[in-house]
């Protein structure tokens, strides 16, 4: 026999109590993991940003457009490799609850800036040739059962009327961090239509997407772009794609902070629960620990038994919690794919789960260990009988 066997047996001596504690830890780790995954999902756009891409928008606000004529001037700036543009379309498919992001873009050039969107060349060519052609992500196509050649009608919100598109391409993400729920269609289709209906809104874009030759010079290039349009009617604000995405998140920062706080509160609560369990356990066994000390076992043996037992309980709960996090995240992600197109459990979340369980296990065992180690043997033996 080894003391580890005793440690394991001790952990499951009170099966109901231990099972309930493990259940509590499992739920806490599951909750913690899910909340961390929500936060990761919030930052998915930031994580997916490329250091070699800049976003140029109107300096006043994103809702104000920029002239299409800026494209050539941006292209001439030193350090710019490629320029494309797009406008947020904000169309609705049948019902508002079917929300997905849709943009009017310069399809070919735009997708060249996004090598993480993998689209067969023939589909790209087809989408480019067809004025009404559009490209959608795999998940979006699966969600609505769309196939190549299908006609998709969006109800315009910013640009009124019903807009008809033909699905010419379905892109896949290079990896699982890529958003596969977006729709892109030809900006020219949008522009040609509004020239007829609202001419004053024609020949304008929402933003420019700029590819730079050297990511290390991105800040200088951004300054040069903004400098080129200084004192114009539509001054620009250029920032890295990451900063642009963070700008969106900062609008909802309070929610993210609240979720982070709740995730840590969950851990603190379960720490109190486990500490209570361990305190009860150690109090009940104080006589046994005195017997161990009588037999010649030292403080570190007793500490090993209590810390080990605490860690067996917390790590068992942690492993179960982690095992449940994956299916729970999958179910949660598919249910709320409108809001969280990327809902993957990050490896860092698993490490945080393990670290949290480890900390809970250790902290919960500190006081009972101190009590068991410091109690006089004679006092401990008096607790028996």
């Amino acid at each position, binding site marked *: 026999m080894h003391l580890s066997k*005793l440690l394991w047996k001790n952990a499951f001596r009170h099966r109901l109590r231990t099972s309930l504690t493990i259940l509590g830890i499992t739920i806490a780790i599951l909750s913690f993991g899910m909340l961390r995954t929500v936060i990761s999902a919030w930052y998915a756009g930031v994580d997916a940003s490329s250091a070699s891409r800049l976003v140029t928008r109107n300096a006043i606000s994103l809702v104000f457009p920029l002239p299409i004529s800026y494209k050539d001037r941006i292209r001439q700036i030193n350090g710019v490799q490629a320029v494309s543009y797009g406008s947020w379309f904000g169309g609705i498919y049948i019902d508002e609850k079917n929300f997905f992001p849709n943009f009017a873009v310069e399809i070919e050039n735009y997708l060249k800036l996004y090598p993480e969107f993998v689209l067969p060349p023939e589909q790209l060519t087809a989408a480019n040739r067809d004025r009404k052609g559009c490209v959608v992500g795999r998940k979006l196509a699966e969600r609505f059962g769309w196939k190549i050649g299908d006609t998709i009608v969006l109800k315009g919100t910013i640009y009124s009327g019903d807009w008809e598109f033909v699905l010419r391409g379905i892109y896949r993400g290079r990896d699982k961090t890529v958003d596969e729920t977006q729709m892109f269609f030809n900006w020219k289709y949008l522009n040609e239509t509004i020239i007829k209906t609202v001419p004053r809104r024609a020949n304008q874009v929402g933003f420019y997407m700029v590819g730079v030759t050297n990511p290390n010079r991105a800040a200088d290039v951004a300054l040069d772009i903004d400098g080129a349009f200084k004192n114009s009617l539509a001054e620009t604000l250029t920032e890295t794609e990451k900063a642009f995405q963070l700008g969106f998140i900062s609008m909802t920062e309070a929610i993210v902070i609240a979720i982070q706080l709740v995730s840590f509160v969950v851990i603190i609560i379960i720490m109190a629960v486990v500490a209570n369990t361990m305190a009860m356990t150690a109090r009940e066994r104080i006589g046994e620990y005195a017997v161990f000390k009588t037999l*010649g076992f030292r403080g570190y043996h007793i500490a090993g038994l209590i810390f080990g037992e605490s860690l067996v309980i917390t790590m068992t709960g942690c492993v179960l919690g982690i095992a449940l996090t994956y299916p729970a995240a999958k179910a949660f992600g598919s249910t709320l794919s409108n809001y969280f197109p990327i809902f993957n459990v990050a490896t860092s979340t698993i490490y945080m789960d393990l670290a949290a369980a480890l900390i809970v296990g250790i902290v919960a065992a500190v006081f009972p260990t101190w009590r068991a180690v410091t109690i006089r*043997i*004679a006092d401990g033996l008096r607790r*028996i009988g």
Partner: protein
Amino acid sequence: MNQAKRAIVQIRNLSKSYRRGSQIIPVLEDITFEIPDGEFLALMGPSGSGKSTLLNLLAGIDSADSGSILINGVEITTLAETELARWRSLHVGFIFQFYNLIPVLTAFENVELPLLLTRLSRQERRAHVETALRVVGLADRMDHYPSQLSGGQQQRVAIARAVVTDPTILVADEPTGDLDRHSAGEILDLMDRLNRESGKTIIMVTHDPRAAEKAHVIRYLEKGELSDASQ
């Protein structure tokens, strides 16, 4: 014969008191006595007379206020906590009133516990445990848990645990206090046999005159003072 009469325990001017609030309650006062090697000594006395305190001091699980305890040449009152723990593991076998077996361990595993502190191999530990359990007549109950054994059998497992390391002295605190008369008789016979056949020095605290009768020497402790009593 001379070896049997050598004093294995030498106690000089031993005093111990407890503090209750601001009050100091003396338990043992200036006690001096010796226990020869191979002795079976019974310590008797009324409740609160300090019998168990004296036993705890002899076993190195409590500390004296003053005086000296020399056991087999080792002055245990000067040992540090860690040295004392090691000394206990090698030299003292403790038999408790309530057996104090670990309920989640089998009889074999309970007896094996003190051997986990030694450098013995697994096979050697097994051999020692089997021998100890055979001595107490429980070779066929090795895989039983304490809850599957009677009180007498549990105490025999506790005795096996106490002797498995072949300690210098065996100390027993009311070893028959929780047993019926028949089981108590069996335990006393076993202790007597250990004393006679293996030459174990046994110091037993008891209230029970029948238990004390098994001892070679009976000493009475009253109001913290040890009196020479009948043999």
